[in-house]
């Protein structure tokens, strides 16, 4: 039963992201699944596995649902029906895979702030060249996922 509800929460969060560009509020999740807000928050915390869904430590609301961010970031991903924020340069490309469509990415170079728009198809890499720099080694990725 627990796994079934966890699956329903996960699917609802990502369905909402696909349709609206942002994750649902805890109150919406609770209402959708006939849970109390407290139960919905507790379930969300239990989904904190890998890079799936992380809740904000202060609010308990969805903070990240990999590869999507609930808040504004450097990486705006524009699809055919809605737009999303991605957590990082890796995730901006992951959004196209989840959305299953070619997307436009509006971003900028982290060093010089030069605006940068690229198309990220699902079947081939972006035509433009660029570099993604991973500051932390993989063994530290999950120590502080917000920083990572």
């Amino acid at each position, binding site marked *: 039963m627990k796994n079934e509800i966890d*699956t329903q929460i996960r699917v609802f969060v990502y369905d909402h992201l696909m349709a609206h560009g942002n994750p649902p509020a805890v109150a919406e999740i609770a209402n959708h699944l006939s849970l109390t807000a407290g139960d919905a928050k507790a379930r969300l915390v239990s989904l904190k596995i890998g890079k799936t869904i992380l809740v904000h430590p202060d609010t308990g609301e969805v903070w990240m649902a990999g590869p999507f961010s609930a808040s504004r970031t450097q990486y705006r991903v524009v699809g055919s029906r809605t737009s999303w924020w991605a957590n*990082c340069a890796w995730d901006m490309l992951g959004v196209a895979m989840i959305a299953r469509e070619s997307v436009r990415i509006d971003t900028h170079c*982290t*060093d010089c702030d030069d605006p940068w728009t690229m198309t990220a198809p699902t079947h081939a890499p972006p035509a433009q*060249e660029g570099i*993604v720099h991973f500051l932390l080694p993989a063994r530290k990725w*999950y120590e502080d996922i917000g920083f990572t």
Partner: protein
Amino acid sequence: MSLFRSEEHVERWLRTQARDPGMSVPLAQVWALAKAWYTDPRSEDWRPRTRDESQAVLTSVGLTGDFWELPR
């Protein structure tokens, strides 16, 4: 994981921020990583990968060596 125009921009940013360098990966290789890493979480069958499965994804796109070793 931050985006840069070139390695020259990475090096300048690291100096400006006084940060130790990590590892730079071409955008096309990160696209391959994203394609292999992200499966659709809306699938009822979706489950988190194990550590070894995630390591295999990194290896499959050429990200090997100590820097890319996930915690055990």
